């Protein structure tokens, strides 16, 4: 069980998650410092490690729209945040699967900051409100990558099959 630490609207773009002016920073070890850099207070809390790992961000439709920048995923993965949204943009979804960021599509989700949530099977439970919301499962094609431990591990395996040493 974890708390909702941030509520966001529909169409949150990768420019909001990871502003373009930090794009020269690319390494997953360095990107977490700029997560939501323009939401100054939230960014400060993240940097001060005041947001526990596994905390939830709850957003509206089309989360992660816009640029394909992978920093938008590695920056959230670095804080081990879990993103629940009514929907996600395509490239952001793929990048999350590739890097192992936990994203959960729950089209009917209702939550406020401070609510306690729990993921149970194919449902998000809002413990504070006593409500349950169904999760849309990832397509099986993507589940393969998650099961393999991400795209790097999966590609490594495929490479070894292709050209055994």
């Amino acid at each position, binding site marked *: 069980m974890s708390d909702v630490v941030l509520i966001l609207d529909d169409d949150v*773009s990768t420019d909001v998650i990871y*502003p*373009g002016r930090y*794009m020269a*920073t690319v390494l997953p070890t360095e990107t977490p410092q700029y997560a939501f850099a*323009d939401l100054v207070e939230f960014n400060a809390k993240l940097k001060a490690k005041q947001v526990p790992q596994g905390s939830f961000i709850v957003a509206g439709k089309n989360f992660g729209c816009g640029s394909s920048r992978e920093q938008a995923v590695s920056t959230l993965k670095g804080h081990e945040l879990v993103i629940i949204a009514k929907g996600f943009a*395509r490239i952001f979804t793929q990048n999350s699967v590739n890097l192992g960021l936990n994203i959960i599509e729950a089209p009917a989700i209702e939550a406020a900051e401070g609510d306690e949530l729990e993921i149970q099977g194919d449902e998000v439970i809002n413990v504070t409100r006593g409500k349950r919301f169904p999760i849309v499962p990832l397509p*099986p094609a993507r589940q393969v990558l998650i099961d393999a431990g991400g*795209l790097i591990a999966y590609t490594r395996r495929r*490479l070894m099959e292709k050209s055994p040493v």
Partner: protein
Amino acid sequence: MGKTVVEKILARAAGRPAVSAGDVVEPAVDLAMSHENGALVINQFLEIYKGTGLAPRVWDPSRIAIIFDHRVPAESPKTATNQKKVREFVAANGITKFHDIRGDLGGICHQILPENGYVRPGAVVLGTDSHTTSHGALGALAFGIGATEMASVWALGTALNVEVPATIKVVVNGKLPPMVGPKDIILRLVGQLTAEGANYRVLEFHGETIRAMSTSGRLTLCNMSVEAGATSGIVPADAETLRYLREEAGVAGTLTPVTPDRDATYVRTLEIDVSKLEPQIACPHTVDNVKPIGAVAGTKVHQIVIGSCTNGRLDDLEIAAGILRGKKVAQGVRMLVFPASGRIYTQALLKGLLADFVQAGAVVMNPGCGPCLGVHEGALGDGETALSTTNRNFKGRMGNPASDVYLCSPAVAAASALAGVITDPRTVTVGGVR
């Protein structure tokens, strides 16, 4: 059962007799494009090889393209060092389609690929940039991916687990009125579909307006298809595609256009009549917040930007220069012009268009992305407003979350530069003396 263009391309690339929307395939990649973010791709690529005992080697250096455009010339030591790292990798791996920071061969990736003939009809083109959708203008399947996925492509030569997208057929008919162009069509369409209306779908463009449209205009349409969430936009290749590739991109050899079957299955068909279309504006802070110009005319602007992979081509510059020629940019307005490539810059120079801009008071900048992504130059002050021919107006997109960005066509941008407020280009006279 009939097939769409994307189904035919993916069947060919995956070595299957036929595929349908929803199938999962592993297509061979014909072209893999990156820009400065190649630095991250390299990092992830090397990561893949760790512990394998294999020497890291890209699958085919002739199919990788790397173009520096997002931060050129480098704005910081960090970027300069990333670019240096990429240059070294390019040299070590024999990557040939590399466009460094140069006045002749450089430019924005989505302009460099078409104008050098790197994109062919029927090809699978992947890029670490969301606007890779642009290249569908040449009848290819082109879409954006992340850096790690690109690293995987560099290693394997195929894209893993690609779901064949369903297709929305967009039929555009009618003759465009004066001062109304491809940008207005795509803004209108994004407004209608909404920012997520085409998620996991391909937009396939048809109709007499598209057939009569230049490749430049088609690039604008496919470029912004991603703003409706589309995986890609595709204009099935036709006579104009072949003309462009032969005459402008210098392509020799066989070209095989891929066309959809008559009975192809579409999830939805949209028909648009553009004969009465007005100039369209995307208002802050989402691209689908689109209004006809009348709704926002008179809004004060501080900075005008003409350029980007959406509208930085020669015809865009010609329209804008025609409006500005012999006139002056309004006091208190900064106007920045970014030709999309070195080639376009040279053509505009030789045609006198750059002189038109400079004499009107605009600043002509080097080819590249410029302020489009808010990292490099042309930042806005708090509370300021930009009117731009680029493709995104998200909060903070131009570098300052406390500013507003409106998106428009080159004609609207030029007319507004003269007045200092958003202005309908149908109200200005064109073609003053040089």
